């Protein structure tokens, strides 16, 4: 069930100033809000404190279609906001298996027993139904052992948190008496008590300004089919980190997530949880691609396989980052996509400003975002490239760097040889 709220901004109100939504209504997950502006461009939206699950319709005709319920006829895939995906229970799946699959289940349980005798530090102690369902999908032994290791790490972290909680409880009981006497700071201070609410309001204020005027950053989410579920989780984590960094800055970027798969996992992860509903979050999520939203000459795609390097930050251009974690299969995917569409491709000048040691030159999403942020503030590469992890540089005393192989590479240039 969704409640529909229409809000139109007329030209007069645009001229008169900004206006605010009722944030309480908007924060509930199952509302749809349509914001119409008579302008065609995304940049000219004048909205304030709009949460992420709002639909934008740029023309009045689309609005009318929506109110009549006509856009439902065309594509049901675009009903993105409703979380009505049918998720089967893992226990239901396990009850309705083929005879072949039942046999595999038996074999897998045997395998689990045998491995827990050999390698108990890599295998979890308790297995749930959802874990068996995921294990059934995998065909090779090595991949399964990696999954076991991941489950074990989750168990370890949960156990540690429990222990820390208990430790904290004990320490609080001891020190609780002391705090009241010595530190009455919490009640009488010279510092103003700043609540979370005000912080969120200030964040949303800046983010909406960036929506209207500021630089736009596009995250290309169209690579979901090429990634395994583990890698998708990693991208979501990295995007959350980027979003967190963005909120705290003075002049944030406007995040645009394009090319989303309506049946995929990315959208659900945006609309549920803390980062979907709630105050202080302002970004756009669309089905469309960045070619429809921005003019082509402004687009610049960042990928590690490019030929040219970025020289300075251009505030008029829209930068695109591919939301992709390629641990398993490394192909030049971003390069291919940008070539097909005719966009200029660019990479960071890591070779000019850094002395590289050992490591992959593909950087993670939050690292690239931090570099871009710093670049924008100070057009200085040395300061902004400090976010490249230092274990990859030649200065780190990492045991991999200290080995013989990289040193030989440097020494060979000075040797004189007769024959080659």
């Amino acid at each position, binding site marked *: 069930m969704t409640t529909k709220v229409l809000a139109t901004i007329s030209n007069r109100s645009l001229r008169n100033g900004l206006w605010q939504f009722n944030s309480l209504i908007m924060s509930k997950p199952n509302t749809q809000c349509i914001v119409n502006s008579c302008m065609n461009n995304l940049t000219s939206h004048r909205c304030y404190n709009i949460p992420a699950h709002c639909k934008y319709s740029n023309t009045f005709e689309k609005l009318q279609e929506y109110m009549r319920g006509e856009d439902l006829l065309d594509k049901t895939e675009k009903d993105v906001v409703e979380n009505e995906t049918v998720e089967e229970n893992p226990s239901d799946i396990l009850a309705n298996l083929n005879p072949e699959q039942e046999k595999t289940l038996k074999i897998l349980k045997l395998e689990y*027993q045998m491995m827990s005798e050999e390698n108990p530090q890599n295998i979890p102690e308790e297995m749930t139904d959802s874990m068996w369902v995921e294990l059934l999908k995998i065909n*090779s*032994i090595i991949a399964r052992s990696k999954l076991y290791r991941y489950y074990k790490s989750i168990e370890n972290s949960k156990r540690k948190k429990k222990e820390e909680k208990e430790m904290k409880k004990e320490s609080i009981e001891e020190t609780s008496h002391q705090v009241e006497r010595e530190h009455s700071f919490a009640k009488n201070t010279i510092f103003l*008590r700043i609540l979370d609410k005000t912080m969120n309001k200030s964040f949303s204020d800046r983010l909406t300004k960036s929506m209207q005027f500021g630089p736009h950053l596009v995250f290309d989410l169209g690579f979901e089919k090429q990634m395994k579920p583990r890698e998708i989780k990693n991208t979501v984590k990295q995007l959350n980190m980027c979003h967190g960094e963005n909120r705290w800055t*003075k002049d944030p970027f406007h995040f645009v997530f394009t090319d989303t798969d309506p049946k995929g996992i990315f959208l659900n992860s945006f609309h549920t949880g803390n980062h979907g509903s709630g105050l202080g979050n302002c970004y756009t999520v669309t089905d469309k691609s960045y070619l429809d939203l921005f003019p082509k000459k402004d687009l610049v795609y960042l990928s590690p396989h490019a030929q040219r390097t970025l020289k300075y930050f251009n505030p008029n251009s829209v930068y695109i980052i591919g939301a992709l974690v390629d641990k398993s299969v490394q192909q*030049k995917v971003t390069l291919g996509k940008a*070539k097909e569409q005719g966009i200029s491709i660019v990479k960071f000048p890591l070779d000019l400003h850094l002395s590289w040691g050992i490591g992959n030159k593909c950087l993670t999403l939050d690292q690239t975002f931090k570099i871009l942020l710093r670049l924008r503030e100070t057009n200085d590469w040395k300061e902004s490239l400090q976010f490249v992890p230092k*274990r990859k540089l030649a200065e780190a005393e990492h045991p991999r760097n200290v080995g013989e192989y990289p040193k030989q590479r440097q020494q060979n240039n000075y040797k004189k040889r007769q024959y080659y």
Partner: protein
Amino acid sequence: MSGELRKQYSVRPKSNGALMTFCRINHMFRSNFIISNSSYCNQPKQRQQKLNPYEIFREELKLTEQFLDKKHINFNEIDKVCKEYGTQARFWQTYCMDHFHHTNDINHGIKLMEYLEKHSSQKISLKTLTLFIALTGSSGHQYQNLVYTTFEKVLKITDVFDMSSIKYLIQGFCGTDNWRKSLEFLEMEKFQSTTKNAGIRSPIIIKALYEGDMSLAMKILQELAAEGNEPSQRVFVEMVEMAENKTGTVTIDTLLDLLREKRWYPDENTALKIKNYFLGLQGEEWQCLDTHIKNDGVCPCCGVNLPIAKFNPSDFENLKKDIMEKLIVASNVFHNSSPVEIKRFIEFLNTHGPFDVVIDGLNIGLCKTPLNPGVKLRLAVEYFTSKGKKVLVIGKQHMKNWKKESMRRIQEQAMLFYVDNISEDDPFILYAACHSGENTMIVTRDFLHNHSTRIGVEYQQLFNKWLQCRKIPKFIYTKSGEILIWEPNGHEIEPFHTTDSWHIPYRYEDGFKWLCLVK
């Protein structure tokens, strides 16, 4: 402020809320007092190495040194020692049985099983049972009944077997009369993994050859070859031994024909055994030597010319299509090149016709001689054009910036094709060589291993054979500024048979060595 007040108010706030506000203000306005920790440390993270149970047995408790190497083993002591250590050392039985399996020690194994049956407090785990089956099966024909009795115990525990238990069961059953049952176990493998394991099937192959069932053995070997897998070297060793002892219907010819068909190469050890076989043949005197055969195709010991490889033209066309589909286009054209480029390349090839030599410009230009890359290219090109051959050089767009004189001279003598800077040039070289016929030479130092894996299982053998015969094995620039090229002869690296002699190649480090056997 007075001294006392200063002490109070200069202390940092210890409550959490006030600290957070302080941090937030600080962070918001990016002032100079930045509270941050260093994000990395120079020392690497030391992982807490938790030991395997096997490692515990081996290193901490030192079971093998103290207990298992002696003649009379007391299992009671081992039990006590492990209980004192804790619950991590529960399964000492598997470790002991594993040790006996490695050393082929049946007597101790039987004693272990008797001990475990008496002391019913310890459950016998599946792994010990399967290991015991493997032990008894591989030790001799006498212990058949033991295999069957323990298998009944196994059936009580599970109906269905996983990879490691399959391995041991097959090893055990292939020593008995009822060896065909191991085929049933093989069928359980497909539930666990889609690829076929070669090590599991070796005992079946060996037993089938002993019993004289050639069709079964060949069928299994073909299945392995269809996936691109090699059987373990143990199979070849056993075949040689069978030929020596004249058990079964295996002769040395079957082995060598197999190796020639599927292009599998023996190891050093197997080559030794083949040599000993020929030396030990009665009634005939064989002279056996190890040599390197150089590019002439002439054996330095006996002076025999090795045969030259022949290729099917129809196979070559299919190879060409495969190169196009899997190397250049792959999953998406735009990863490695673009359709515009491919069109241009094909038109270029069609107009300028087939070539005799294809040179990889980047590979030659960027090798480590202290010469100008343009000069290096020119030397290589002039070597071939002075012999009257048609040369094609493939390079990237940035090669236009190399030394102008040498590039001008190259353009007069040979054809140049420039690929985009972003795209890969190796598949283009392969396609051009394939297009120009069978006898084109390829000039690179690159092994092109990654391309041979990408091409797929069907034409991988052909691809490797073609590269072996047509790629230049070595070239060198001398001090005086000349180039020396070792040209390929086109001889096959396969076992070669005449009435009087055998020449067998085997793997030696990165290359090949030959066994020269003459009567």
